[in-house]
């Protein structure tokens, strides 16, 4: 599904004018106002530097520029990270706190999360254009960046990439690199939990070519953290995993598995 967003990588972005998202301003006001210690105004927040890439993605502009594919991947990763952090705030305790403070903090929190959701959907469906006029990465570095981008759900048309490769380049793109770029697939899987043997479950995720990446895998609360050179994607784990102990990650050519062991004392079978 395509969105109306056009993203160019390889062009130094201009400063993004505009104001801080209303939901963020309102969230801060709602959290701080009941205590009366400070009241950030939209004027104060306007002067702050929201991370440029994140701000660009949150803006409602139809065209955004990034200096490189890596910068775009990092911005999407940051946006996902912020969303995860906000979702951790949204707890029963937070709702109670907002209720007692008689403020709209949770409403604004939800608004901000919705805004980020929308931005993520927009960028994953965007039309991506590469421009190597100002800077041309090495084929290897570009492959790494495209893999990072694919991890956060943004695809790149390999044919368009080949056309963008400057004809003035000392070396044309080799067949080997063309084929490697074509092999990069967007990460889409949400995973499957299967019982491997008694008390051992395996959470399986498919991603073509994952075996040849330098992927790091971690767990943060109920999310799997997939990290590729600092660019992160989060996969929600099935609720059952919270009662199991994670073990070893196995990387195969086109899939990964994470073992979870049941602690019978935590989860007795009937």
């Amino acid at each position: 599904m395509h969105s109306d967003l056009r993203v160019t990588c390889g062009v130094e972005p201009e400063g993004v004018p505009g104001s801080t998202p209303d939901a963020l301003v309102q969230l801060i006001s709602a959290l701080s106002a009941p205590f009366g210690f400070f009241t950030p105004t939209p004027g104060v927040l306007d002067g702050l530097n929201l991370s440029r890439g994140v701000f660009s993605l949150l803006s409602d502009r139809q065209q955004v520029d990034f200096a490189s594919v890596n910068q775009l991947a990092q911005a999407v990763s940051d946006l996902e990270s912020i969303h995860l952090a906000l979702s951790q705030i949204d707890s029963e305790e937070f709702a109670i706190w907002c209720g007692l403070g008689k403020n709209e903090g949770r409403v604004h929190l939800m608004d901000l999360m919705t805004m980020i959701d929308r931005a993520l959907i927009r960028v994953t469906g965007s039309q991506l254009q590469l421009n190597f006029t100002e800077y041309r990465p090495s084929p290897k570095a570009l492959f790494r960046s495209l893999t990072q981008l694919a991890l956060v759900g943004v695809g790149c048309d390999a044919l368009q990439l080949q056309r963008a490769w400057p004809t003035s380049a000392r070396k044309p793109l080799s067949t080997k690199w063309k084929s490697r770029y074509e092999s990069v697939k967007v990460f889409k899987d949400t995973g499957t939990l299967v019982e491997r043997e008694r008390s051992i479950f395996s959470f399986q995720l498919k991603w073509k070519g994952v075996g040849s990446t330098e992927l790091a895998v971690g767990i943060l609360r109920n999310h799997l953290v997939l990290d590729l050179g600092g660019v992160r994607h989060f996969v929600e784990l099935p609720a059952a995993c919270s009662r199991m102990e994670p073990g070893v990650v196995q990387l195969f050519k086109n899939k990964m598995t994470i073992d979870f062991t049941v602690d019978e004392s935590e989860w007795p079978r009937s």
Partner: protein
Amino acid sequence: MSEPGKEDASANDLGSWLISVGAPESITDLIPSEMARLDIAPLLALFNGIGLNGSGLMGSGLMGSELGGVSVASGRLNGAGGKVSADEIRWLPIIRS
């Protein structure tokens, strides 16, 4: 002056944060202890990401974590003042087949 690392570790709960932005220490008596211990690290990290700490509004040294990815030391404080380790990324061993 306390060590930044130590300060960070104790200032991510709501009570400490309120005090760090100017509230009297008695504020923790006015709000339920469960709320005072509420972890607001992710929110602080978000503010940090937009540079709000640079304005001095939140006090210096409060926000040690960065949100370039979730390197956020979040989590609820336990009764002894220690962190619940489940709130940090736990990296898993990898075997390549």
